């Protein structure tokens, strides 16, 4: 399966993401610049992390209004898998591809550490290589990861299995409602998450807990 990584000014985790996708799929992903209005035929589009547009206005707000995001919206509607990590998650929320918002961490501090993640829903195309309830390790690095949604949206997410990852064992680093770390859209093909699975995919990283997510998303057997 083919993948593409979006590039926007101020993102800085694109190289980690490209390295992870290359390592796992055996071929480098395509890269798509923010001004492109079409995305080539791929099976997975990844919006990586960083500080697009310097986090000006709101994290991800300006990136979400760039031409390439209309193309992402079209692809997502056509069923192409889309993964947003960290700033990529913020961008997908600002673009309206996922519900809710990410606010300043409750501690007001930038957090950079490892957390425990519970795989809440293992029946998505991104998590099928994990078990429901499995706890995995994953690094986080962000200042605005405090997930917020109104009560109705939150109930809808919880009731329909759309909370995919939750901070576990008291490791919620940002004050997110219901310890939410990652959510998926209604159709099950757009996943946004604050933690960085791309940074824990090979023994040299100190673990491979994140690799299963990319293998699943790319239909590569475990």
């Amino acid at each position, binding site marked *: 399966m083919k993948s593409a990584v979006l590039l926007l000014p101020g993102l800085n985790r694109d190289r980690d993401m490209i390295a992870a996708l290359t390592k796992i799929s055996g071929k480098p992903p395509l890269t798509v610049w923010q001004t492109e209005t079409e995305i080539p035929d791929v099976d997975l589009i990844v919006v990586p992390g960083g500080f697009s547009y310097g986090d000006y206005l709101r994290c991800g707000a*300006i990136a979400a*209004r760039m031409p390439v995001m209309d193309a992402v919206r079209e692809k997502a509607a056509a069923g192409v898998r889309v993964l947003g990590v960290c700033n990529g998650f913020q961008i997908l929320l*600002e673009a309206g591809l996922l519900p809710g*918002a990410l*606010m300043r961490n*409750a501690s*007001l501090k930038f957090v950079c550490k490892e957390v425990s993640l519970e795989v809440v829903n293992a029946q998505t195309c991104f998590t099928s290589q994990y078990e429901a309830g499995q706890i995995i390790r994953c690094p986080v690095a962000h200042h605005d990861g405090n997930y*917020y949604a109104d009560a109705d949206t939150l109930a809808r997410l919880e009731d329909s299995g759309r909370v995919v990852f939750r901070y576990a064992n008291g490791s919620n680093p940002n*004050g997110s409602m219901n310890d939410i770390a990652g959510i998926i859209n209604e159709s099950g093909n757009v996943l946004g998450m604050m933690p960085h699975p791309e940074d824990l995919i090979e023994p040299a990283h100190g673990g491979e807990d994140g690799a299963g997510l990319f293998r699943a998303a790319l239909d590569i057997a475990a």
Partner: protein
Amino acid sequence: MIQARVTVTLKNGVLDPQGKAIEGALGTLGFDGVGHVRQGKVFDIEMDGADKDAARKKLSGMCEKLLANTVIEDYAVDIL
């Protein structure tokens, strides 16, 4: 030329950790009697033309599309 001011504030009920920190700092500085503090944003925008109604409409569009995240924020448009 029309001079407009757009004010974006967090909706009621949305937690504002930054406002809370400012509230604490005001107390630390000895300002007593300070209740809740909420942080927001102000945009001063110059617009061509003299039609205030048309400008107001355009500014609301800007708020809906970019200046405010209506999931968590309210906005107010003032023509100065």
